[in-house]
Each structure stands twice: as C-alpha cells, then as structure tokens.
C-alpha cells in the first residue's frame, strides 16, 4: 500500500546543512501500523511531508496505492488522511462546518458527509461540541476534530504525526483505541509519536530514526534482538545517549 524508496532531503539554513532524511526506505502493508519513531529533529516530520508530496524530496520517491507522490500528488492526497501536531482548526467555523468543508474538498456528496460525520462523532465522541465554534474548543477536542477531519473521506492510508500532542491520558487513549480500529479495517498507517508505551502496543513494526537515518527497523521482537533492550524507551535512551550509530556528517 505504502512504499517508500530511498527518500533523501537536505535543508540549508544559511551556513548550515541539515540532512533531514538520508536514503530512507520502508513499506507498509494494509492492516499494518508502522511506528516511525525517533527523538526530536530525527527527520520524521520531513519524511511524512515527503510521503504526502508537500515537500519535494532531493532523491527517491514515495508510492501510495500505486501513485507516486511526486508525479500525482492529488491522487496521493486523495488516498491519505493526514493528521499533524501542528494541524489547526478554522476558528470561525463550527466543527460540523469544517468537517463538511473538507468532505466536499475530498469529493464526498452531502449525504455521504452527513453519514461520515455521524459515524465519526460517535467513535471520537464529538457530539458534545461539534456545533460549537472551533475557537472555543479545548486542545483535546481540537485534536479529535482534527482526526475526524483526516478521516472524513475514509482513506485507505493514514499518516499521523504526533496525533496525541498536548492530550491528556484519556484523550490519547481515545486516539490510540481508534488507531486499533483503523488497523482492524485494513488501513495502512504510519504513526509518529513520543508515547512509546502506546506505540509499543499499537504498532506492528517500527522504524527508529536518528539524524535523518533509519537506524533500527523491524518488529518489536526484531528490535529487542538487535539491541538487547526489552522496551522502546530503553532503546531510545540508548540511541540518544550513546549516539551509537555512525554520526551523520554535520557540515
């Protein structure tokens, strides 16, 4: 469903050269949740933006449902639901208006939009605030609305970049539970998160990134074998503290 081939991207900020992605490849099958993990600045967000076609890769490409994001960005975007930590809401619209607007943008009919809103508000518990202006919503409500927005067209692929940022335990639980549901429905999901315990539970496979490189990959078992650590948190700390990967040249 998702196929990432040798994606590379370098940024230049004045005199600095930042390698955000160095030859990263992986695949995600339907019904699979791929955890793209790593410390801040590892290049996860850049990866997601390139997969979606928002950012042009220097090298490599991403293919989603047979469409390359550099050649057919609109086709790719149609297949993907995208939630990012930075995703805002339109403060002067109500939740329902915003969902309706995105439903229409993704080509849903009015009836379809109505059905989807009903479903999503049941699962994500939106009904209490869906007719309120978005400016008045709490962080958790906004994030749930954001997730509903990304799911409005029921895409086969989900890209979730820190969907639980700023949420309390209950709020995150709602989101992770829903990710489970999505997996059951055979969606292909790429998940970026710092909530490692939940990631450990919900993801089938992992890719650990550090300084733009994918340094560890595989199922939890594979990772445990490779690192000798039992859980993701330890692997992470090890990764950052020892910097035990070949350091990427910072020019």
């Amino acid at each position, binding site marked *: 469903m998702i196929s990432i081939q040798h994606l590379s991207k370098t*940024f*230049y*900020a*004045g*005199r600095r050269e930042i390698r955000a992605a160095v030859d990263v490849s992986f695949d995600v099958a339907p019904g699979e949740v791929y955890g793209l993990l790593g410390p801040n600045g590892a290049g996860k967000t850049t990866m997601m*933006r390139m997969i*979606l076609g*928002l*950012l*042009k890769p*220097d090298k490599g490409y991403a293919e989603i*449902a047979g469409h390359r994001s550099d050649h057919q*960005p*609109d*086709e790719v*975007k*149609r*297949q*993907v639901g*995208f939630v*990012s930590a*930075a*995703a*805002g*809401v*339109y*403060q*002067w*619209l109500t939740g329902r*208006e915003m969902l309706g*607007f*995105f439903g*229409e*943008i*993704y*080509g*849903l009919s009015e009836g*379809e939009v109505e*059905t*989807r809103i009903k*479903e999503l508000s*049941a*699962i994500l518990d939106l009904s209490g605030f869906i007719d309120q202006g978005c400016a008045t919503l709490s962080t958790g409500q906004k994030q749930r609305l*954001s997730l509903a*927005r990304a799911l409005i*067209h*029921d*895409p*086969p*692929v989900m890209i979730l970049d820190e969907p639980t940022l700023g949420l309390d335990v209950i709020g995150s639980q709602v989101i992770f539970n829903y990710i489970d*549901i999505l997996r*059951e*429905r055979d969606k292909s999901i790429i998940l970026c998160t710092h909530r490692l315990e939940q990631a450990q539970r919900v993801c089938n496979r992992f890719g650990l990134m550090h300084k733009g490189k994918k340094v560890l990959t595989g199922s939890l078992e594979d990772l445990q074998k490779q690192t000798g650590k039992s859980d993701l948190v330890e692997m992470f700390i090890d990764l950052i503290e020892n910097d035990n990967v070949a350091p990427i040249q910072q*020019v």
Partner: protein
Amino acid sequence: MSQNDNTKPNGNSKKPARTGFRLTRLAQKELKETLRDRRTIVTLVLMPLLVYPTLSLIFKTFLLSNAALFSGGEVPELRVVYSGNVSKAEADFVFAKIGERVKFIDDKSSGSGGALLRPDDLDEEDESQSIGSGLKVDDLQPEDVGFPPWYLMRWQFIPPSANPSLAEYVEVGEADLGIIFDLNDPTRKRLGDFTIVSRQDPFSLAAADHLAKELEKANLADREFRLQMAGISIEPVVNIGRKLIGETVEQEAPSAFPLASLVPLILVLMTITGAVYPAIDLTAGERERGTLETLMAAPLPRVGILVAKFIAVLTVAIFTALLNLIGMFVTIWVFQLDQQFGGGIFDFRVMVQIFLLLILFGAFFSALLLAVTSFAKSFKEAQVYLIPIIILSLGPGLMAMAPGISLDGVNAVVPMVNILLLARDVINNEVVLVPSFVAVISTLVYTYLAICLAARIFGSDSILYSGDGSLVEMFQRPTRANVVVPLAATLFCLVMLFPLNFLSIGFLGRLPAETTADLSFRYGMMGVFTCLAFMVLPALVARHQKTSFRGGFGLKRPRIVFLLAAVLLGLSLWPLVMTMTEGWHAAYGILFGSEKQEQWHAKLIETTSEQVARIRMVSPFVILFSFSVIPAVCEEWFFRGMLLRSLLKWNSVWKSILISALVFGSFHVLSNSVIALDRLLPSTLIGVMLGYLAFKSDSIWPGVILHSLNNGIVVFLAYYQPALSSFSWFPGEDESIPVVWALVGLAVATTGVLLTRFAGSSGLPEKSSNATIESGEVL
C-alpha cells in the same frame, strides 16, 4: 464493530468531484470565515461610517480657509458689468436664475428673496452710473455662509457705446467681470451668446470660472427660462465665450480644490484597507494557525486554493468599495459638498463606472496583496511587508492628484495611477477611449501577473516549512565557495542598484555644466559612478559570497568566433534600434493621438539635443570612455556576468536571458532622468542578444565588445552629426534612417546571430537540480 462498516464510502472507489465545484466551496468557506471575523466587519462597516464624516469636516474647514484667501475671511464682493442687447429685466432674470441654482446664502437671512446674487436697486436711469456708487451692501451673517466659492454679486449695465467701455471697467479694476449679452437671435429659439470678460488675476479668473459654470448649469437645466425667453427649443440656450484682457497675474492661491482627483484616491485607499486584513488572514494567518498544511494536504491544485482565496479577498474588497462608495455619496449629499463636483457625481452612470473601476482596482490590489502576504510566514511578518507597500502606493496616488496630469502615455500603464486618473476623468466626464482602454487592459494584465506570482509563492514548500530567519540568512557569509553568486545575493545587489542609480543621476545633475572642463568632470564622474554601482558593488558581494570573479562574472577568454559575432552585432544593431524607436513613436501616435505624440516627440528632441550639444563640447576621448567603454564593461560585468549567471543556475536558459534582458531594459528606461519608455524595447532586445552571446560563449568579453561598439557608434553619430551631414548620403538631424541601412543592419546582425548559434556552446553552468531553500523558486 459497527454494522455500517461495509457501507462506508471507500477512498479508492470515490469519484473525485469537479474541481470547479470544490473551488467554489473553498471560496465560500474562506468568505464565511472572513466575514465571521469581527475584525473584518470593523474595517468593512465601521471605517466608512467614521471616515467620511470626519473627512468632510476636514474638507469644510479646508475649503473655508481656502475661500478666505480671496477676501481675508470676508465674503468676496463680485462686481459685474454687463452690456449688449439685453433689457434690465432679462439680465436680472438670468442673474437671478444663476443665483437660484447656487443657493449659497439662506433666503431669509438675506432678506430680499434672492440668493447670493441680488439684483441691484438701481433704476434704468442709474445704468450709466459707474459701479461702486449707490450700491447697497446687505449685511451677511457669517453662519449663513455656505461653501465657497461664493460671492456677493452686484451687476451694473454699461451701454455698448459707453466711454469708458465695459472692457475698460474690468481692466482698471472698477469691475471684476464683464458680461456681454448677444441676444440677437431673431427666432428667439435660443437666448444668444454670452461673452465673459475677465482680468487674468486669480480672483477675476476664479469668478469667471464660477460664473461660466453656473451659466452652463442654468443653460442645461432651465426649461422655464427657455420657454419664457423663446419658446421650446432643443438648441442650447446660450453659448458662453471667454475673453481675457490685461496681463497674466501669477496665481497665488489654488482657485479650486481638486476634489475630483481626491475622491478616487480616498476610495482606492479604503478599498485597500478592506482587502488587507483578509489577505493576511487567509495566507500568512493560515500558516500561523497551522491550517495551511492541512489545506495543502487536500487533493486540490495549489493555484486553485489561491484563486479561491483571491475570490474571497476580492469579494471583501468589493464589499468595502461598495460601502465606502455609499458612505462617501451620502456624506457628500448630507454635507452639500456636491457643489464642488459640478453636480456630475450624482449621476448614476458615473457611480456605476466608478464602482466598476474599484472592482478592477480591487482585483489588482488583492492579487498583489496575496503575492506579498503569501511570502510571509506570520501575521506580523505580513504586516511588516505591507506597510511599505501601502505607503509606496500613496506615491502614485498623490501623483495622480497633481493638476495637469492626464491619462496618456506612460500614465496609462502605471498601475494605480491609471485607475485613479480614469476615475477622475469619469467624474469630470472627460473619458478618452484609447487611453482608458489601455489603462483597463494593463491593470488586467498586472492582476494576472500578480496572481501568477502569488500562486508560485503561496504554499510552496520553502514558504510552508522554512524558518523565520530567512531574511537574515540572506546576508550570512557561506562557508563554502560558490561557483556563481547565489541568487539571493544577486537580487540584493539589484535592489541596491536602483537607489544608487537615482542617487548618481541626482548628483550628476547638480554638477555645473557650463564649460568644457565642467562637462569633462561631469562625464568622468559618471564613469566613476557606473564603475562603483555596476562593478565594485557586485564585486564586493561576490567576494562576500566566496565566489571567484572568473566563475561568478564569466571572465574566461572566449573563442575567437564569438568575438567575431560580437563585432558583427555591435556594428549592425544600431540602425535596427533606431528603426524600432521610430516604430514605437508611430505606435505611440496611434495609441494616444498624434497631438500627444508630437508633444512628446518635441520634448524628446529638446532633451536629446540639449544632451548632444553638451557632449559636443567635450573631447571625443572622454566621450569614448564614459559613454562607450566604461558602461559596456561595467554593465556586462553585472547584467551578463553576475545576474545572468546567477539566474542560469536555477532557471532555464531562455527564462534567464529574458529576465536579465528585461532588468537591463528597465535600467535604461530609468537611467534618463525622464522616464523614457521608448528605450525599453530596444534595450531589452539588445539585452537578449548580449545574454545569448554571453550564454553561448560562457564569457562576458564578447558582450563587452558588442556593447561598447553599439554605444560608441550611437554616441559618435550624434557627436559628429554636423560634419557627417555635409555628406549627401547622411540623413539630416530630423530624418529617419534609410531603409537600406536598416536592411543591411538586419543582414549583418543575422549573420552575427547565426554565427553565435552554430558556434557550439561553451558550456555555461546550466540549471542544476540541487536547488537550496533560498533558491530562485520565486523568480
């Protein structure tokens, strides 16, 4: 889980809705969002409610003080003498009619049923008396006084044969105006002719203007008048002639305030005000709030999203324009300011036309605003960019208010100025078809270009994700050497060159230009400035950017074949350029009328011949260096060296050549202190030739040869023109180039181009793929 799992729409099978429909929805949403924002409503509704009454109070004060200039605060008395075949009753009727239409002074307070114009109390036998005696001055209550110009008018009959004559009364100042009635039409279908006799001093002229205007109004509107005088007629009742006597007196005070120019300016500024907030909010604001990325992740073309935003901004701008228009007209009506417009402003057609012009202007400015705000990453940054733009746009706005400026030539294509002048002409009912058409078309073209620019900038990944420090980073020194100067640094150089250019023109203009020594010094300084601006500045920037001169400016030795091509082109381009200039002159005549063309041509010849006369005073060696060699070397150094090579790094070959040529052309338009649009096309074309030659040869030296030959020939043809004219084959000063010359030039130039074309490329660095964030995405 839930049973409707299987019935849900699936992403794969969905049919994409029509893009057009989705964009309409998008525009609707943008509009809904903007209009729900109370801050939009403030600028939209509250501003016109507050601004116009305030402005009208300012006008009132201003106009009162303006009128006070005539009389030191007193109501000016206007002494009119009249003559001709008219009875006192008829004259009284005419004057009273004028007064009726003026109504500047309250009827009751003046006490004699008249308006400001009051019939004098003299009987028929008093007619021959000199004016100024026996006239009764009514007391005027200051609070009864309306808007100026108003007059307390008195009139006195002077028989046609009297001595002193009517004209003499006016000339010596015994009277301010004379009116000669000619009612000699036997059919009496029309009243006849009036001749207004006035002195050429401000008071008399202004009074004559005022009277003529009032007579015209009476003439047009007063049916009763015609019925009484001559029965129904479709002919104009009066013809009004003017006769000036005496010496011209310098006008000290403005006789009339250019309200007709001010109205469009205010409306345009208010329209801008309405569009600014939504433009920022829907671009930079959206990025700041984090909704832009979500929108970019939707399957919509970027251009489409921008167009939807453009429609939303434009709609708000149109609302603003409409509300402001209404606010302004209501204010004008309530405050009785319409007298200042000759009443024409209340014509429905005028209002509709002004509204249409505001829509056109709103479209242009909305697109411009979006281009600027799309570049910004936050609300604050957008405001920082917009403030100078709005202040800069006041420049053309004020320029359009200057008296005597008309919608033609360059003015018809200068954005904002053209719309303001056209709106002024609409109010004054003086619209001329062709320049108006040019103004509208050019504004549409600018709108399109601004939308294209905005679409390139809006949501591009460099804007979406780059940090906030990009402006600072532009000035940072790179750690590695560059092959060519980075585009950002080149653009910085280019931006600096414009003010430097103006400064040096201004400085040179202040140098004395009397003697040969003066002029030699002046031309020497000109060379120094050219060197500093086009050579030293770029060289410093290149050093700062760690770029070698050889690579950054293309200093390598070219192949001989390119030098040959350069010589051929350098020798042959000038007759083509001159023919082209003549063609432009002819086109100018067709576009703006032969009268304008002649005026303009005469002015051009005047400035040119002045320049040529100065050049001839100086030694040919000075001329050779300051007009041919130095400009050639320095301009090639910058335009074909730095600029073209920077552009080529990130753009296609022809785009780079065209952009550098257009910049080159614009510099030549601005280099004369007069904006000389006729130089744009030829200079740009030569710029294309030079660019092509520099690209193919990978060196600026062939261009230097072409450039200095071309400049040298043109300047020395003018220099030795008197000597050359003695040859019979040489065209005279005002003659055009023989066709044969142009044809020979074309043949030689073509040979030069073909030589360049087939010489094989020397491999200048072409567009490379590893563009950086700060690269030329925008250009």
